[in-house]
């Protein structure tokens, strides 16, 4: 970590490091405003900076109208966003975020990502874990870890360019029947809902066989550009089935 062993680095490493653990620990009996002020003091944040940053964070998290509400009376996602706001008050060189957006709604997730990009643009290094593959795709680099082993490491676009499966959207047919038929075909590596239809990844070269199997159901295949979730599903599947 910053050239030092984090276990030995002591205060020098800790000072340049920010952490948001998965199980955030705010003070349940303090209000939104009190929690923010508490963390600002912990980071020795000057008043003007605190004002500027907290206004921005309250805007993004939409917690502004709830300054006086106790943390234990917040909804699940509001609590998570308050924890994130507290962690982001401080601008460390390296920020570690362990699943920061679980339970956060799609609107706030977009705004938080815009802020993360700004922080990175200003020179911060961010390492985050996420179960959302749309977020994985937004990282400069991703590592895919499964059962403790790093299966992939690289730039999302580069990893996708090397992806060996093909991705299709199913057109027509009745979704549940199509889904059932597909689940019996070993060339189909993953099926996901996409709009009202299904999106599937299949072994390269097997689309013809799959399409034939779907013809009696009045469904056909349309090729689409693979995304990171397709890649995840195809890579993690063999181990999951074992």
């Amino acid at each position, binding site marked *: 970590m910053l050239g030092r062993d984090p276990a030995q680095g002591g205060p020098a490493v800790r000072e340049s490091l920010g952490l948001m653990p998965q199980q955030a620990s705010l003070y349940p009996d303090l209000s939104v405003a009190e929690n923010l002020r508490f963390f600002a003091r912990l980071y020795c944040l000057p008043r003007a900076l605190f004002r500027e940053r907290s206004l921005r964070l*309250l805007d993004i998290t939409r917690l502004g109208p709830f*300054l006086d509400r106790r943390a234990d009376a917040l909804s699940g996602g509001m609590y998570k966003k308050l924890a994130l706001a507290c962690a982001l008050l401080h601008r460390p060189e390296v920020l570690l975020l362990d699943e920061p957006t679980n339970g956060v709604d799609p609107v706030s997730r977009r705004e938080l990502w815009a802020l993360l990009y700004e922080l990175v643009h200003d020179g911060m290094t961010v390492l985050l874990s996420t*179960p959302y593959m749309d977020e994985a795709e937004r990282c400069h680099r991703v590592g895919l870890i499964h059962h403790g082993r790093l299966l992939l490491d690289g730039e999302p676009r580069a990893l996708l360019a090397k992806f060996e499966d093909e991705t299709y959207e199913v057109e027509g047919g009745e979704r549940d029947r199509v889904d059932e038929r597909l689940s019996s075909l070993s060339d189909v590596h993953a099926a996901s809902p996409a709009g*009202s239809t299904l999106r599937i990844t299949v072994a390269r070269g097997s689309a013809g066989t799959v399409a034939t199997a779907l013809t009696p159901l009045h469904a056909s295949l349309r090729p689409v550009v693979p995304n990171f979730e397709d890649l995840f599903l195809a890579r993690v599947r063999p181990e999951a089935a074992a």
Partner: protein
Amino acid sequence: MSEPSIEAVHLSRRFGSFLAVDDVSFSVARGEIFGYLGANGAGKSTTIRMLCGLLAPTAGEARVAGFDVKSAPESVKSSIGYMSQKFSLYLDLPVRDNIDFFGGAYGLSGPDFAARADEVLRLCDLEAERYATTGSLPGGIRQRLALGCAILHRPAVLFLDEPTAGVDPVSRRHFWRFIRALAREGTTIFVTTHYLDEAEYCGRIGLMVDGRLVALDTPAALKRRYVPGRVLAVRGRNLASAAASLRSRSGIIAVEPFGAGLHLQVAAADWDLASITHALTNAGAQAVEVEAGEPTLEDVFLAVVARPRDGEAHAP
């Protein structure tokens, strides 16, 4: 017509002067998968807690599985399964002991219960984890256990409050396969989620904004109503700034980041794949690929829920 499984009539809940759920009415039929969506703090969990007989409404009424939540909360509780947003399992107990604990809470015991416990372990694919300490299991497996505990007593109605939060894509698919099977067998499912791809499996969806139910319909009808334009999925480099310059052009209805790319919602009369590619390239984007996309529920959510910011902000 049989009685609906869930019926809420002018249901409201106030906390002090704050109205968390504001005059909500809907009904859900037996065997339906009903999705309840909304931004953080919209009032989803509060509604669920009222429907489960855990929190008294401050106004209005609700009947669940034939019982009134105000006058017969105990009957409601024994007819429903509830997976709460907060974790309810005992992490230091083995899987099997958690099952026994929840079975006991529902008053189940004896050989019938032992057989049911085995059946649930098999259904939820937890047989190999029977003796594992719950806290040592990954999130996706714990979530399956929480679901197993909620269905031990074969409830007619199942309330799932963000059952897949933090769960990886593979486990989420397993989970939903199971939920759909339960619904086919007649269990009514009331579910909240912030993963809008899986909400596509709901028969109907209610959308909450600031405590009010602002829309309720099938996914297809919601898309027709709230995503009137054509959706184009765009990938490429330097997209964000190029897309920002498109925002003000006529016929551009919405520009939203989706993963590393964008969804553009455009008026079909003004734009096609080629003209969008051209416009983005002119605005500085590179390696632009545009595909016709189907509108998703996430497009609907952004159209309904994304709202202007609340006026003046005050520093804490």
